[in-house]
């Protein structure tokens, strides 16, 4: 654990934080193109954040301090999570302190606070959003855990670093269990980030909204932090997916050119997959809310199948 590692970990956090709105913008552009609309500029999310940071904060009269603490906590947790995932290098000093189970716990901590803050003001929409968010999460979180467990069993480790390097050490194999896990992970990614089959990030229609209902009472810099944290969450899920299923290019060494190559590959993956997400969203339809448990139940079962398959074929 040298200073360089710490710097790289911190650098990765800053990279994630700076890159997240860009990813949102990129997905937004592709959505607009696919829908035959004129696309907003790539840096639109930054402009929006800039605008929000300079707006006045209006806090509901009935709000408790919890409402004001949550945006900072949310952003802090998301930023930390972003720094824990091997985006570019795998040898991160904090990797030993937080394994994948703790990572899921960290995401869950952020979510619980967001849901509690939504119920804090005591409006109809707030508690509605919190209820729906917890509904989505109680199926999505175990599915995500099971995906991790499949990969963890493959590499005999729950530490992200060894999960990633384990694949690299064995070269390229096709694992049937990973296919199931990959599909489950994609479904969870869509659900957890409020993407189309589950939620629509662009709507304020009370029949369908989940995430937006929770953050209705926020304004100004609080809202900016939450939007930013949300963008970070998308980036986090993308880089988790890359680390687990497309780990090529990740480096365990600290040589400059290898890091540069890994960084370029990471950006390339983001570019392709960001567009892919937009395509996926465009070709699928938003589901009714009570179809969501079926959708997530499928994801959970797929993930469980993946781990069962691993033990069936592996032993």
């Amino acid at each position, binding site marked *: 654990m040298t200073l360089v590692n710490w710097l790289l970990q911190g650098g990765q*956090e800053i990279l994630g934080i700076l890159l997240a709105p860009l990813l949102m913008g990129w997905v937004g552009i592709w959505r607009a193109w696919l829908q035959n609309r004129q696309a907003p500029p790539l840096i639109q999310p930054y402009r929006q954040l800039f605008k929000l*940071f300079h707006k006045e*904060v*209006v*806090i*509901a*009269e*009935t*709000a*408790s301090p919890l409402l004001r603490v949550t945006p*900072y906590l949310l952003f*802090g*947790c998301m*930023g*930390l999570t972003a720094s824990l995932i091997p985006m570019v290098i795998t040898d991160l000093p*904090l990797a*030993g*302190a*937080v*394994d994948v189970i*703790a990572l899921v*716990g960290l995401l*869950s*901590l952020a979510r*619980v606070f967001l*849901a*509690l803050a939504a*119920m*804090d*003001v*005591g409006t*109809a929409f*707030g*508690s509605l959003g*919190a*209820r729906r968010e*917890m*509904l989505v999460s*109680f*199926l999505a*979180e*175990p599915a995500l*855990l*099971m995906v991790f467990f499949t990969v963890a*069993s493959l590499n*005999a*480790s*729950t*530490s992200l670093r060894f999960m990633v390097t384990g694949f690299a050490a064995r070269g390229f194999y096709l694992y049937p269990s990973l296919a199931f896990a990959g599909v489950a992970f994609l479904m969870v990614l869509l659900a957890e980030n409020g993407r189309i089959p589950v939620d629509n990030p662009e709507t*304020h229609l009370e029949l369908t909204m989940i995430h937006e209902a929770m953050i*209705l*009472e926020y304004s100004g*810099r609080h809202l900016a*932090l939450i939007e930013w944290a949300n963008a970070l969450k998308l980036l986090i899920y993308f880089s988790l997916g890359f680390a687990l299923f497309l780990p090529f290019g990740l480096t365990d060494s600290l040589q400059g050119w290898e890091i540069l190559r890994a960084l370029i590959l990471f950006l390339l993956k983001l570019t392709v997959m960001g567009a892919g997400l937009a395509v996926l969203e465009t070709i699928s339809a938003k589901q009714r809310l009570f179809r969501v*448990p079926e959708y997530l139940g499928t994801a959970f079962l797929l993930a*469980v199948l993946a*781990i*069962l398959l691993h033990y*069936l074929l592996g*032993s």
Partner: protein
Amino acid sequence: MSLRPLDLVGLILIGWGGLGLLGLVVPARWGRCLLFPLITGLSVLMAGAGLWALQGGAQTLVLPMGLPGMPFHLRLDVLSAFFLTLLGLAGSGISAYATGYFRHMAETRAGDFQRLILLYALFLASMGMVLVADDAYFFMVAWEGMALSSYFLVTTDHEIPAIREAGFLYLLMAHLGAIALLLCFGLLQSGAGGDYAFATLRHHSLTGFWSSMTFLLALIGFGAKAGLLPLHSWLPEAHPAAPSPVSALMSGIMLKMALYGLLRVLFDLLGQPLWWWGALLVGLGSLTALFGVLFAAVQSDIKRLLAWSSVENMGLILSGLGLTLLFHGAGQETVAALALAAVLYHALNHAFFKGLLFLGAGSVLHATTERNMAKLGGLIRVMPWVAGLSLIGILSLAGLPPFNGFVSEWLLLQAYLLRPDLPQPWLNMVLPLGAAVLALVGALAGFAMVKFYGIVFLGQARGLVLGEVHDIGLWERFGMGWMALGCVLLGLFPSSVILQLDTVTHALVGQGLGASAARHGWLWVTPVAASRASYSPLILFAVIMVSVGLTFLGVRRFFHGRWRRAPAWDCGYPFQTARMQDSADGFGQPIKQIFESFFGLSREIPSPFDPHPHYHSEVRDPLWALCYLPLVRGVARLVKVVGVLQQGRISNYLLFSFTTLLALLALVTGTRP
């Protein structure tokens, strides 16, 4: 003669009993201010004695009491010591809280309060006696003392019919369990020809069928106390009925006595386990956990919600115990030690967070006289202490890092994930399902806890006048603060705790975890190897704080300083009232909808044209109709048959005795050679 830990424990038990008796004679006001703090002090001492005994070997003591030829045997080994520590640590927080909590009762119902002190102290003392008992006879005396004293505590408010019913159900189940335990000890003793002392039973091993029967009887006997499916039905009735500190004692500590009993019988008295015992326990435990958490998520009574969540946690603990048994039976002692450490750790954690939440619920109940969540809300503004401390409790219960609930669930998941290598190949494949259930249960617990906290403490008051509600006093703050501190410390310093658990796992499965778990220093937990899994809550906590702090400072740096308060926005709807928030039923509705076929659900939904709409929904336990009602009907039918004999005429009864006598005489003469 120098003082041994066992002598100290004995003195504390006598002290508790003496304080209880003293409570009957001193005036209630003095009893509250003096005796409860003394009970608290003795509890702290008990925790110290337990920790002391954890370091050393077993000690024994024979008391010249009990039946002729069957004196009371006392023994303090590391297993007892661990549970005594739990009893002392959790008991002291709860007793300190009780000092303040019973103020109102001591002033208005002095007679009831004096009885309560006696029963409270006896309850604590009998739990301690269960833990040091070293023969079946003394064990059963202590066990029944525990059941009886808690029964009378549950029925403290016996004027309310529902509480009387709950108490009756509790007593019934406690006795069913006790019968199973008696038979279990009888089987253990069979052929040993001794005095029912555990020392004799330990050297006498059963085989085959009788060994399995003993296991099943122990499972029924202790499972009835632990709330194992399908013997759980008393738990969500009896725990909420008791005064809140007693609920905390029952959920936090008494349930762990069942775990202690199982550990004692399975690992100490009974011989080598068969593989299906563990499999059965894993299955039943996982089912219990899932069942409990689903019911917790749909409750609308604060204390019932917590009681169902206790069912869930006991399920997790017992599934972990099953896992230990499986690996222990297969000779995989490293994994067995890991699972056992997870079980013991979770038992300790549950005592703290469930105790804390029951105390919090008690404060809410005391301040508002309302247990129905549909009428509460917004309490964070008038009860900041209770709300703040309860927040730690729900985060721990939901299993979120860096609090304590997460550590034990993490350990248990690691035990599931360590590549199982059991002789039964199909078990190897099915075991990951246990991990899946564990993950699902954890997430559902998060749902239930957001519901609990969000509805009770956040939002706007639903029909309650908040101005009349007051926060808790100093003693209550101290009690709840103690429990909350326990949750935080147990979460932040896991490797130190695991090191303490080491002697227990060594004694039970012959292998410790401490050497490998703390290999990389006190900061890290590495159950097997650093490349396998590692976790450091303190570092995690520190970096969360740094990350959040930097965010705050960064935003502060560019802060323009303009903010104001305004009415809630709510998408621009101006006629917002408190009744438009989610009620407890509303929040649990998705769970009801998804698992509709699973619950025994009856709903009354108003038509849109109804001028006085009325919504009613009731969730019933399907197992009640499946397991209990047939039993009740069977008993009723039997009673009717027996009732034919009961004519109420003395001549008939004389005839019965005469025929019985004749039959007996015939039997005796017939069997004589």
